[in-house]
């Protein structure tokens, strides 16, 4: 066992405290009975009850989940195709442009992506009359576009780490390229596709800026609703909502980690 120096240990302690102090404090304050979110007024769970009676939150959450599921699925299909293209199709015409286009959304500031897509939708409506209304469709398209980049990167790195000999063997045995893709390649990259779907789903659920740009007056996703509330300051029911997020994610990931560890130990 290598010993860690005292400096490294204290930096680790400070770093993790910095990352987790805000989350812990939100969870504690979500049980605060006081109407003033910053003054402690005794233990209570009433803000959680309040949350589930709030139709606006529930509607926004439902819309967000619908968008996230649709966009993640589309992004996984398109992103897998893009990953295959980059890893297995060699030098097709326009490859440089394509690999530039697929990786750029990863680093593009959200305000630019959002504004440019909104202007696209406005122009499309002007010339073609579509999309007539901005909301579910436009947000889903926007989320698909940036999330497919993440899926492509994951699928591509899985493909380049993978041995091509299985695919080559199948081809040598007379399998047609398409058949090989469906019978050999796709099952092998399934874990990467699942990881990509989950990441795309989370990214879509998380996005505020791009959705605010491309959404219309009627549609409000969960982050848009939360933002409109927290602009005005700290509120107890958002504390409760944040705590639910934190607890669900933490338990989910800890369970996944523990299962993975146990299967590795075996």
């Amino acid at each position: 066992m290598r010993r860690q120096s005292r400096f490294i240990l204290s930096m680790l302690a400070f770093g993790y405290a910095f990352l987790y102090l805000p989350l812990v404090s939100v969870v504690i304050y979500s049980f605060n009975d006081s109407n003033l979110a910053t003054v402690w007024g005794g233990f209570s769970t009433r803000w959680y009850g309040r949350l589930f009676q709030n139709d606006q939150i529930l509607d926004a959450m439902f819309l967000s989940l619908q968008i996230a599921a649709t966009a993640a699925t589309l992004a996984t299909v398109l992103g897998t195709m893009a990953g295959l293209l980059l890893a297995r199709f060699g030098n097709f015409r326009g490859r440089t442009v394509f690999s530039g286009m697929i990786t750029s959304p990863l680093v593009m500031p959200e305000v630019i992506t959002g504004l440019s897509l909104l202007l696209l939708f406005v122009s499309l409506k002007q010339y073609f009359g579509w999309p007539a209304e901005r909301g579910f469709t436009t947000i889903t398209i926007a989320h698909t576009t940036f999330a497919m980049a993440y899926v492509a990167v994951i699928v591509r790195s899985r493909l380049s780490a993978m041995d091509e000999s299985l695919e080559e063997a199948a081809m040598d045995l007379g399998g047609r390229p398409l058949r090989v893709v469906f019978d050999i390649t796709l099952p092998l990259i399934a874990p990467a596709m699942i990881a990509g779907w989950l990441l795309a789903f989370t990214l879509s659920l998380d996005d505020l800026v791009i959705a605010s740009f491309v959404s219309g007056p009627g549609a409000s996703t969960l982050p848009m609703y939360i933002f409109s509330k927290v602009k005005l300051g700290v509120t107890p029911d958002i504390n409760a909502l944040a705590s639910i997020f934190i607890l669900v994610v933490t338990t989910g990931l800890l369970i996944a980690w523990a299962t993975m560890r146990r299967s590795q130990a075996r």
Partner: protein
Amino acid sequence: MTDTPNQDTLWQRFIIALPYLWLLVFFLLPFAIILKISLADPIIAQPPFTPFFDAHGDLSITVDNFLFLLTDKLYAITYLKSLLLAAAATILSLVLGFPMAYGIARSRPGTRSLLLLLIILPFWISFLLRVYAWMGLLNNHGVINNALIWLGVIDQPIQMMYTDFAVFVGLTYSYLPFLVLPVYATLERLDQDLVEAALDLGASHARAFWDITWPLARPGVIAGCLLVFIPAMGEYVIPYLLGGPDALLIGRVLFDEFYVNRDWPLASAVAVMLLLLLVVPIVFLQRNQSSDAEST
């Protein structure tokens, strides 16, 4: 089934064409439109800018928006402030993140996977809610001020919320994991025998670090710093929620110019300028990534 090879090439074409077309329409075309609108004049109409071609079919473009951005003092300050805050957050992330990544890479495998999980975990919790959590900490009656008063360090709350300091802390907090992960990835691959050899040959720990560890970790450090700096430059939510009314960072100015002033051409020009500022670091990042991928 009697598929001919022709159908296979058709399928291959389809696999190429679909993502290609999608990106052309929903990624490249929007940039062309932004560029086009940034060269127009604002008018009160729907849409609120002058058309590309005037009534006689002549090209009608203007660079007024860009001239305005380059000469207006407020905009110069905005760009400079965004740059400074993003750079400061990058430096603090590096100072804090590098030792963390180093510690994680050198811990036992079991501990290591838990520590890594704890770095990734915040990613899966809503970004907006994590920024919101700082509002409760930094408030005048927030956790930090209350704790400091209780400890007797101060007797009046310090104004932290709605200041540049809050934006700086928020940026560092949000993007720190982006730095830790790539740095960790290079440090983990680093051959520890090299460091041992240097120590055996009589180098001090500091010398071994600067001569061996640091140069080998550089690709990860560069990637990590750019992954903090680039999104921090265009950040909208953090300055809006934690910064004061004068926390005019580019992302926020762009949003306000578009929605509050309804000046679409100027907002587009701001976006083009931001992109120009970021082109150098973005290209640098992609170079760094691809050369790093080739070397392994």
